[in-house]
């Protein structure tokens, strides 16, 4: 088997093992058995063993999650609409992700540091996507020309993740509430004010 494919197969198997038995209970042997490869093979692809496998599995799931949202944004032009859709789909996806909810209720302490690290990686990607959006918006004359793009993208990326994972006073299933949120905390600081 092609090394990339085999590596991939082991990560996907790890995800299925987590779905079946949670994080704590999984051993490297369980994963090797389920993937039908030897321990030596796993160590060849993942020198840090179990910890590396788990963290790559979590990172893959998190990337998949955001990849799905990104694909929904392809035909959307307006920046505010992109923020609204991301918040709505993100909040919905988190609430409906059974594996996430199950692990949060039983193994939060193990899961959260992994998730936090994976999210930090994704946050870098989100930040660079926002940077592009901001440059394009300034170019089109819709956003403030004096905007500090690095600072703004950092803030916007963090606020996006914060709001989609914890709703606070906002109702992210209600378009009116999302509209208000995006208008105040996302667009007010970056658009050209009249």
């Amino acid at each position, binding site marked *: 088997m092609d090394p990339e494919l085999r590596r991939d197969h082991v990560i996907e198997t790890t995800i299925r093992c987590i779905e079946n038995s949670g994080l704590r209970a999984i051993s490297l042997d369980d994963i090797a058995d389920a993937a039908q490869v030897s321990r030596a093979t796993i160590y060849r692809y993942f020198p840090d063993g179990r910890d590396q496998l788990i963290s790559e599995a979590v990172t893959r799931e998190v990337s998949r999650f955001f990849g799905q949202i990104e694909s929904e944004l392809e035909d959307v032009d307006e920046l505010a609409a992109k923020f609204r859709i991301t918040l709505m789909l993100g909040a919905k996806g988190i609430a409906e992700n059974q594996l996430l909810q199950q692990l949060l209720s039983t193994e939060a302490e193990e899961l959260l540091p992994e998730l936090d690290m994976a999210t930090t990686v994704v946050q870098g990607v989100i930040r660079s996507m926002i940077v592009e959006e901001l440059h394009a918006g300034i170019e089109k004359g819709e956003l403030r020309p004096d905007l500090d793009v690095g600072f703004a993208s950092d803030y916007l990326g963090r606020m996006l993740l914060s709001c989609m994972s914890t709703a606070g006073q906002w109702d992210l299933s209600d378009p009116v509430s999302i509209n208000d949120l995006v208008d105040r905390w996302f667009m*007010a600081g970056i658009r050209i004010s009249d």
Partner: protein
Amino acid sequence: MTESTAIPNRIVNAAVTVIGRQGLRASSLEDIAAEAGCGRATVYRAFPGGRDEVMYATLMASVDSIFSACECAAQCYCEEDCCCSLGESVAAILQSASIEISSHRALQRLLNDEPGVILDLLMFERFNFVLEKASFAAVAYLERFVSADEAAKIGEWCARVVIENLRAQHPGFDLTDLAVCRQLVDTFLVPGIQRNSGGN
């Protein structure tokens, strides 16, 4: 301080010291009792749930100490004859929360060594507890500027900014620096605030 709160407080303070020194997992009830200068029985009388209850009370007390620092900053800016703006007050609150967190040895120790304990309070549904607390506190701090509803939203915004920064620190985003807080507040919060009237 009355006799009934003195002992629990002493135990919680001792737990903050012990956790700061050796982390949460390695801190036993005996260590905390020894630090507080009392016996196990005294700890159990104050906290019948034992170690778990002491640790929970300690985490809550640490959260409270952050809010106390914010209250202090808000009050300094809220003297009757003070002429500062809403933006200045909010920036001072952000900065004081960040300084309190970065100088809190027990919290820093947990963030570095056992982040799961802290993240459990700061991610997903559980974080609503902190957001609500921040909203509630902000109503008192900011009522002279905006409506209660608006102040509650500002409180939530502050908690999100401080906590996101705690989770993933980024150069150029140092919230213990008042100038950075001002830039953040003036750029992203103030333009979206709805005012009661045309005033400041």
